[in-house]
């Protein structure tokens, strides 16, 4: 039996007081529900983070393998060498495909004479599973882009798996590839928070500013508070004070207001 620390240590109020800078309940709930909504039909048993990549990496691997075979054929190597060379190419290409998960999958343009006249190598045929989607047409410079919803989900999965670096990379990729999407807009706040957490307040400030400079968005309060935190971390008290005053003018009824007023007093 453990001794209960009754008299002098009261744990009943532990964790009941909101922390300075934390999201209010509604914002936090909205984040959670949005993240859950990003998993339509799979929320019941969301597989680990590889699910997003596997759906489109596999066809890309198959396509690259076929192309490698075609290129080797087109270069008219002797048939006795052909099998060996092709296998070598496949092995050397495969890891590159996985490395490219963070960026566009760009399938190189095959030479014009690369029409394969023979069956593809055995390694390719051996795949027992049908591809989940039709194989990409090896047209010149085929770009396989992931939808903003899936990119957001991939970022959230990476974050859920504890890989902040990957999450940040995916959020950035989302902003880069779908800059006008709603998901990219929201991702800017996530990027700001991750940058702040990583000790990069300048980058965080840029991201929060980018969000706030655009009109609209349901995370404006959070972005504004993040901006204030970034200014504080950068040691810019005048800007921080101005940002707090602006926040209080616009969102005086916010849950953040109380502690920001205290912070403002300490700055004056």
């Amino acid at each position, binding site marked *: 039996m453990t001794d209960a620390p009754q008299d002098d240590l009261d744990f009943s109020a532990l964790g009941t007081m909101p922390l300075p*800078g934390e999201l209010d309940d509604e914002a936090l709930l909205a984040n959670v*529900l949005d993240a859950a909504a990003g998993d339509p039909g799979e929320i*019941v048993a969301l597989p680990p983070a590889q699910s997003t990549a596997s759906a489109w990496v596999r066809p890309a691997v198959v396509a690259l393998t076929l192309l490698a075979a075609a290129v080797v054929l087109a270069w008219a190597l002797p048939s006795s060498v052909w099998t060996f060379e092709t296998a070598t190419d496949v092995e050397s290409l495969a890891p590159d495909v996985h490395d490219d998960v963070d960026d566009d999958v760009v399938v190189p343009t095959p030479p014009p004479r690369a029409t394969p006249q023979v069956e593809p190598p055995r390694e390719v045929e051996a795949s027992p599973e049908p591809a989940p989607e039709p194989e990409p047409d090896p047209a010149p410079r085929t770009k396989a882009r992931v939808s903003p919803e899936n990119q957001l989900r991939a970022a959230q999965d990476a974050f859920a798996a*504890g890989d902040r670096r990957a999450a940040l990379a995916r959020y950035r990729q989302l902003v880069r590839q779908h800059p006008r999407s709603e998901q990219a807009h929201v991702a800017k706040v996530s990027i700001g928070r991750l940058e*702040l957490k990583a000790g990069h307040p300048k980058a965080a400030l840029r991201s929060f500013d980018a969000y706030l400079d655009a009109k609209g968005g349901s995370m404006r309060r959070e972005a504004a508070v993040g901006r204030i935190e970034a200014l504080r971390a950068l040691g810019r008290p005048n800007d921080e004070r101005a940002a707090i005053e602006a926040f209080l003018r616009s969102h005086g009824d916010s849950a953040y207001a109380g502690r920001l007023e205290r912070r403002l007093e300490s700055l004056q």
Partner: protein
Amino acid sequence: MSTDERTADVQLAQRAAAGERAAQAAVARRILSRVRRIARSLATSAADADDAAQQALLEVLRSCHSFRGDATLEQWAGRIANRAALRHLTRERKQQTASADEVPQHAAPPHPQLSDELPRDLRAYLHALPEAQRTAIVLHHAFGHSLDEVASMTEVSRNTVKGRLRLGVAALRKLVRREQRIGAPADDAEGSR
């Protein structure tokens, strides 16, 4: 809890598992305050607490299909959420430790330590303890989990939990008393902040 209430909870969880947003919101709201309390108690910053709470709630929503009504929704979800929050915070701390050398020096820390701004409450003392002791104390004394539950959540033996609680509480008392002896009286300290 009546059978009707339990059945209603199972149905609610099933709807949440099927992706119905209103049901997910209802489940999340039921445990929100508990999840936030534990996240605040164990996290070292507001951002970490938010992230832990969000991960915990997501984990609950993703597990809703397995709710059978053997316990109340709050009890069942609370256990899942606590585990998820603990996992998240443990990972965060490992990453922070690993990347400590990469963090540039700033005039102020990127995430100000909360004890800088909060009144010196129990949370501040808890954060002076080793993480394992702090976690055991929070789960057992603040959230009422049994020794066996804490042992399961933290993946150590029951005896280890007992030892952590004993040492942690003793250290906590020592910290509080030392501050009371050498610091200003509690009322003055509160008033000065």
